[in-house]
């Protein structure tokens, strides 16, 4: 166990070094969601769900970051490394399968938290708001990385090569951008869609992030201020949905993930 942790941290550090050396990845992972956030917030909006529209959208941006910094990043990384036989070599080396996956997850978590930090600075400067519940933001980030890391592992199994990764991630990306309550609350979607949106893994993460930033109930349409305990109680259904998605993601990853290119 200790060895696995040491290996995972070591691999995560190497991952981050490599992200720093690859301009394309750096742009896709770090800049893209921030650019999108700038586009999303450039349209004048009134209040949404009882708060300033720009603040509402900005606190939903972690949903986009999750798509780019975690999901797309990891589908690309897993696919490219499988095809280049890096995964095979790692698995034949000292680290266990668990440590290899955890290493990628840790580096994605570090990137994601770094972006959320940047976003926190942005929110503070633009709106004068400080995060109300940092532990909730961190827990949401960790659960988000767990779910989307596992989904990325599963999707990389469906992706024949690194070029195709752009296409296989598209459906997930579209769903995340359209159905998640980034720029509007889930409740404004027509009945069945709202239910579906609530069950998608990105929705509870966005709602936890927003609640964590604003200290108000953004799990329902209400938006009233909650104390710390009330925030966690309100988050319980979301945490439950995410834990269920961790299980689903793990099953899918186990089924679809491949360590080596297909024979022949």
């Amino acid at each position, binding site marked *: 166990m200790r060895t696995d942790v040491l290996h995972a941290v070591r691999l995560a550090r190497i991952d981050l070094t490599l992200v720093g050396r690859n301009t394309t990845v750096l742009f896709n992972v770090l800049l893209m969601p921030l650019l999108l956030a700038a586009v999303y917030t450039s349209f004048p909006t009134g209040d949404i769900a009882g708060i300033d529209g720009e603040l509402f959208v900005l606190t939903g941006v972690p949903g986009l970051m999750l798509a780019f910094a975690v999901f797309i990043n990891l589908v690309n990384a897993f696919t490219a490394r499988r095809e280049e036989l890096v995964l095979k070599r790692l698995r034949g080396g*000292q680290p266990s399968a668990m440590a290899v996956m955890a290493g990628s997850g840790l580096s994605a978590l570090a990137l994601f938290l770094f972006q959320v930090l940047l976003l926190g600075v942005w929110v503070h400067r633009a709106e004068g708001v400080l995060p109300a519940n940092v532990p909730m933001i961190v827990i949401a980030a960790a659960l988000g990385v767990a779910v989307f890391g596992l989904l990325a592992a599963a999707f990389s199994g469906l992706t024949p090569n690194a070029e195709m990764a752009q296409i296989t991630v598209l459906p997930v990306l579209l769903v995340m951008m359209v159905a998640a309550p980034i720029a509007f609350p889930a409740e404004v979607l027509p009945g069945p869609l709202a239910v579906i949106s609530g069950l998608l893994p990105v929705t509870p993460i966005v709602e936890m992030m927003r609640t964590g930033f604003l200290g108000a109930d953004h799990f329902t349409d209400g938006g009233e201020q909650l104390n710390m305990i009330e925030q966690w109680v309100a988050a319980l259904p979301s945490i439950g949905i995410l834990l269920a998605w961790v299980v689903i993601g793990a099953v899918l990853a186990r089924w679809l993930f491949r360590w080596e290119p297909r024979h022949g």
Partner: protein
Amino acid sequence: MIYPMRTRQLADATGAGTAGLENVIEVGGLRQKYGDFEAVRGISFAVPRGEVFALLGTNGAGKTTTMEVLEGYAPATDGTVRVLGLDPIRQHRELRPRVGIMLQEGGFLGDLTVAETVDLWKGMSEDAGRPVTLSGSTELPGGFTLMGTRIRRVDRATMGALELVGLEKKARVKVKQLSGGQKRRLDLALAVLGSPEVLFLDEPTTGMDPEARRTTWKVVENLREAGTTVLLTTHYLEEAERLADRLAIMHEGLIHTHGTVDEVVATSGDMITFRLPGTSWTFGDLPALDGVAPVLTYSGGGTEVGYTLTGADTATRAHAALRPLMAWADTRGEALERLAVRRGTLEDVFMRIVGEAGL
């Protein structure tokens, strides 16, 4: 080319070396299928501790498949495999730190430098409780930035690994800029880094220039001296002859022959060849040697005569055959032109197996 017998082989030949030796690698009735294709069709062999064992064969013979089952990459379709007495899949965690693997190709992070790659592997080996004991003659300073990349110090252990395979001048080069042969050498350095008890080398010198090949052989020979058990695959006969204590020739998923180089070569028979003037010679004119009739081919106004001796006494059969041949020549008053006596070679055995199975 025949190399002089080494002391280890002598020990084995006298039985002193093999008795009571623990088998580090055991393969029993291994079959491996990919869909409908059966890459390995039932093979068995064992490698005692400290031995270098070579799987020799053409591409597609099933060598790499066999390796990958032993390395724990794929479960055996049928049969049993044990490495250090452990199941490569179910006891992977226990086995991993004690095994070194050199893959056939690829698998590097191209944007890392050579030293960073070794550092990563070294660190992971240390994390797993196997410190790297190599020590190079020098270290490289770090702590500055070059073209946007932070240059880290390269310590003696890492330099030691690079010196072992002659890559010390490439420490700061990115892996993607290495040639194919250099990548193979880096691969070897990573495989031997943690002083493994068992080393798997899959075609270790493919793509290497002759000098790198000799360096690699030297590394393997030194490891053998240190008691490492090595399983290597190769399609270079010279490599198998030079390195292997014992070898097995694989073809189309089966082991066709195995033993020490001498034992295997002995199965090919000794060759006696000469030329007689004129083309009027027939089988009846020539003596049978060691119970074998000659093969005659006519060319350039002469007759090429060849005997392949496969008698049981491999050491003296050629000598024994020459006496009646000389007596025959004396009686007939013929000179045996270009008389040659040659031991069979590994290549003869190899070509016979590959050829026979191909018919």
